[in-house]
């Protein structure tokens, strides 16, 4: 906390960071594995002022909305700086935006000036221009692309501003002084998992509160590796947080991640669960192909780490506490755990140093902590990283809460939960059916702890509302509380545990409510199942759509090159059937109505942008629509096939 900058708004944060950290690198852009270009705090702020002056000259006013379409690159950050210094808000979206969405966003947000990253985006916006009379200026980010007539380049606007500032133009500084805490810094359109894009209005005070309230101890020697889409709120909060302590953000990509982790040796990282799954897969593969003696050493090390950590969690009261533990039981267990902890300690110490450190080196070796967010982290992956000594802090939030509601901290690392709510944030658990307040409620046992219901949030990070949609805003809020639509409970050690999404709940014709996520996560533990989706709304039973892991099938000796060919392979179908049976059996804790009756192998994988959101969540309505014929056939034939 000591090293963190506190500022009233983001523009002042940029200014203070430039004063304090000056020539320290703020961002680093990859040119090749061992060649990165740093941009200092001072230079970034200076360029930001130039751009802002240029934008003001182009007619951008305080509280305007400026479009910002593109993906991770330095010019994106510069534009973000420029827009906020103007006192305006940017409206960001990635390159994968569809033409319809592009038109909708520019029109709905009333955008007059917009940045576009690439030639392709430039041409798409130009094509739409005739239907968008309000759109005055288009500014191209990519310096390697030629601007079409009527389009300015980012450099031109910066040069314009620089020339003006040399003549004593102080309008940018005036604009900074005019920013109010309640002004928007961004307007993010989310398509989320359902429906048409909604414009989430996030204010300077929303983001500033996050920067102050996030747990963590970092300073200007920290290196943050970034792989998330730059415009996503989860990435942006990490960026702003990094700016506040003077760290440097290194832009990596999924393709170069392994290499970059070893070269940059990041101390901090944030990503969606999918990335941790990939990393976990890679580490496991590395172990499997290593020398047999070392494999044995790893298994001993992992076993010891598990014993040691589990006792440590118990002793420090940091285990998943869904039920109340009677005092006598705790008193009985405690000495046993202390004993185990002491016996295992020297062995764990040795193996941790000799074996597990090698695993950590695969992830750079310097990671103090990592944050996972934007979806549920499968429990076995969560445990794996925490056991081998890479602390994973799972967090929970949504764009509407800019985004962090709760997150584990190093001191409060309860595996299986998303940690306690961050400071200044209040959480309620409300019954989805009756609307009754379950937590905190002094009439219920333990003040409503461990009661399951919808999560409601109130705090400084909660959005101002949906832009130009008061009805939806009203529906989302209830007495000043934001209704998240997620189902969760508060554990007995004051952590939040997410159980699923009320909107994705499947109601069977028998009236049973089923959360599909836990079943899907369970199925994905199979090496043969890459992705899957559970279906069965209003049906008698559940079934699954399966995207098989083609690589694993190949390794198992199958000759099929594509998933399409696998669909009709009876042996592949048999393997998957057995996997499903094994994983979701009643002995594994699944209820009878949670059993899957049937499944279909899909001929394609789920892709980001179509079936998946940018954080790899399934867009259920899209999959349902696209594969409606498969689902229909599944439920029409399902019963006969099983008889």
């Amino acid at each position: 906390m000591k090293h963190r900058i506190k500022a009233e708004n983001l523009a002042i944060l940029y200014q203070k960071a430039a004063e304090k950290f000056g020539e320290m690198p703020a961002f680093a852009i990859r040119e090749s594995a061992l060649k990165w270009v740093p941009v200092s705090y001072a230079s970034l702020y200076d360029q930001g002022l130039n751009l802002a002056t240029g934008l003001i000259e182009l007619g951008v006013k305080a509280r305007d909305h400026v479009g910002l379409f593109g993906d991770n690159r330095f010019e994106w950050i510069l534009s973000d700086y420029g827009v906020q210094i103007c006192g305006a808000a940017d409206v960001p979206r990635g390159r994968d935006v569809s033409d319809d969405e592009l038109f909708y966003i520019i029109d709905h947000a009333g955008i007059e000036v917009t940045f576009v990253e690439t030639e392709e985006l430039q041409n798409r916006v130009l094509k739409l221009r005739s239907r968008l009379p309000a759109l005055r200026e288009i500014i191209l980010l990519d310096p390697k692309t030629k601007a079409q007539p009527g389009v300015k380049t980012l450099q031109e606007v910066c040069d314009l501003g620089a020339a003006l500032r040399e003549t004593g133009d102080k309008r940018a500084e005036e604009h900074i002084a005019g920013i109010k805490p309640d002004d928007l810094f961004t307007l993010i359109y989310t398509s989320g998992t359902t429906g048409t894009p909604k414009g989430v209005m996030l204010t300077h005070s929303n983001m500033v509160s996050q920067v102050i309230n996030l747990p963590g101890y970092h300073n200007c020697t920290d290196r943050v590796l970034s792989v998330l889409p730059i415009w996503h709120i989860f990435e942006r909060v990490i960026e702003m947080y990094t700016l506040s302590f003077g760290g440097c953000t290194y832009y990596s990509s999924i393709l170069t991640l392994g290499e970059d982790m070893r070269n940059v040796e990041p101390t901090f990282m944030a990503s969606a669960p999918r990335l941790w799954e990939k990393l976990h897969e890679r580490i496991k593969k590395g172990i499997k192909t290593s020398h047999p003696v070392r494999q044995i050493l790893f298994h001993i090390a992992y076993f010891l780490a598990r014993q040691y950590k589990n006792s440590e969690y118990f002793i420090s009261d940091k285990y998943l506490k869904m039920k109340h533990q009677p005092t006598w039981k705790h008193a009985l267990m405690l000495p046993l755990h202390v004993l185990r902890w002491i016996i295992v300690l020297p062995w764990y110490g040795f193996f941790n140093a000799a074996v597990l450190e090698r695993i950590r080196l695969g992830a750079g070796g310097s990671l103090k902590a990592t944050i996972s967010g934007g979806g549920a982290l499968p429990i076995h992956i969560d445990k794996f990283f925490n056991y081998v000594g890479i602390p994973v802090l799972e967090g929970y939030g949504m764009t509407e809460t800019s985004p962090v509601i709760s997150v584990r901290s190093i001191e409060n690392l309860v595996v299986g939960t998303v940690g306690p709510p961050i400071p200044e944030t209040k959480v309620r658990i409300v019954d989805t059916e009756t609307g009754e307040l379950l937590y905190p409620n002094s009439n219920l046992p333990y003040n409503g702890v461990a009661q399951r219901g919808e999560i409601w949030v109130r705090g400084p990070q909660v959005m101002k509302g949906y832009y130009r949609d008061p009805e939806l805003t009203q529906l989302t809020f209830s007495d000043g509380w934001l209704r998240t639509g997620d189902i969760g409970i508060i554990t007995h050690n004051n952590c939040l545990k997410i159980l699923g999404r009320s909107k994705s709940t499947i109601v069977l014709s028998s009236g049973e409510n089923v959360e599909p996520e836990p079943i899907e996560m369970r199925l994905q533990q199979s090496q043969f199942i890459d992705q899957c989706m559970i279906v069965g709304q209003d049906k008698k039973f559940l079934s699954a759509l399966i995207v098989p892991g083609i690589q694993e099938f190949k390794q198992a000796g199958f000759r099929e090159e594509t998933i399409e060919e696998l669909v009709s392979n009876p042996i592949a179908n048999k393997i998957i059937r057995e996997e499903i049976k094994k994983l979701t059996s009643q002995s594994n804790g699944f209820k009878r109505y949670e059993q899957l009756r049937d499944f279909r192998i899909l001929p394609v994988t789920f892709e980001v942008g179509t079936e998946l959101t940018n954080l790899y969540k399934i867009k259920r309505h899209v999959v349902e629509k696209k594969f409606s014929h498969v689902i229909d056939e599944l439920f029409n034939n399902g019963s006969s096939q099983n008889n």
Partner: protein
Amino acid sequence: MEFTTQLLYPHDQALLAIMIFVIMLGMGASLTPDDFRAVIRKPRGVFIGFLSQFGLMPLIAFSLATVLNFPPAFAIALILIGSLPGGTTSNMFTYFARGSVALSISMTTASTIMALFMMPILLKVYTGGFTAQISASLQATGTEADFVIPTMNIISSLILVLVPVAMGMFIRQKWRDWAKTAEDTAGFVGILVILYLILTAFIRHGHLFLQTPVGVYIGAVGLGLAGFFFGYWFSRLLGVYPLFQRAISLETGIQNGPVSFAIILLSFQEPVQSQMIWLAILYSTFIVITSSVITLRYRKNGRRDWNIYKNTSIHNRLFGEQYKTQYPKGFLPKRLLNDPSQGTQPGQKRF
């Protein structure tokens, strides 16, 4: 004190021999010819380490043995241990203590070779009084022999333990995967054998623990601790940066235990051999505990300058050698403030 029974049975000796072989093989497997070249390229840190290892440490051992009034065989063993080169254990501890592993490795290689010359000299200088005592007691019992330090035997034992090191290095050049395995296995085997020896000693010769004078325990624990302490402050005095101070400190305190076993078994006979082995076992046991504690402490204290060192060197790796990280005012600790390398080089010249 006299040992009435032999401490080690033949199969224990065989076990020790295997352990020595495995550990020295593992040590060789972790070394490359580059490590030897590094010693010549950056001799300053290694030289300070050399002074600390062969200047301070034997002197500490001698002083402890004298002050604590050691029985002569124990005294000779303590001085022998004090004059040993460093091993790979110190490299591992240095790594976790956020010290310079490169310097630790350089010091290990340099001292292993230098030991061939230094050990005979050091033993001659420091053990004179104690060998005379043994000779006197031998003559009192009617034996006609003088007790002398078997210098040539010690040198040949040292050369003998270098054979598995050379084999390890060869494996490293040829089969990387096996070399890694040998490295990982070595430490594990070492700990297992030491534990086995302690346990069997406890079961078979429980009285040994009681018979051993308290002073000997203090000496066995104190040798390592004093080595850490003086190594740390001696290098500090010469203006070495914290990163390298920690490496020198640990390298000074942690000696190559297996080599001491090899020398004692190959060069000394009863009645002194069992007592010397016993001290070597005690030292090897306590050093693991003391260096773990010291390492945890260094790790905590060294976090700040380690983070600065890491960040600076990664900036140079990614942004080019010329890039100079300019930390905000008041951030760098005083000692690093005037150092252009920000602690990535062993330290400013003071002599």
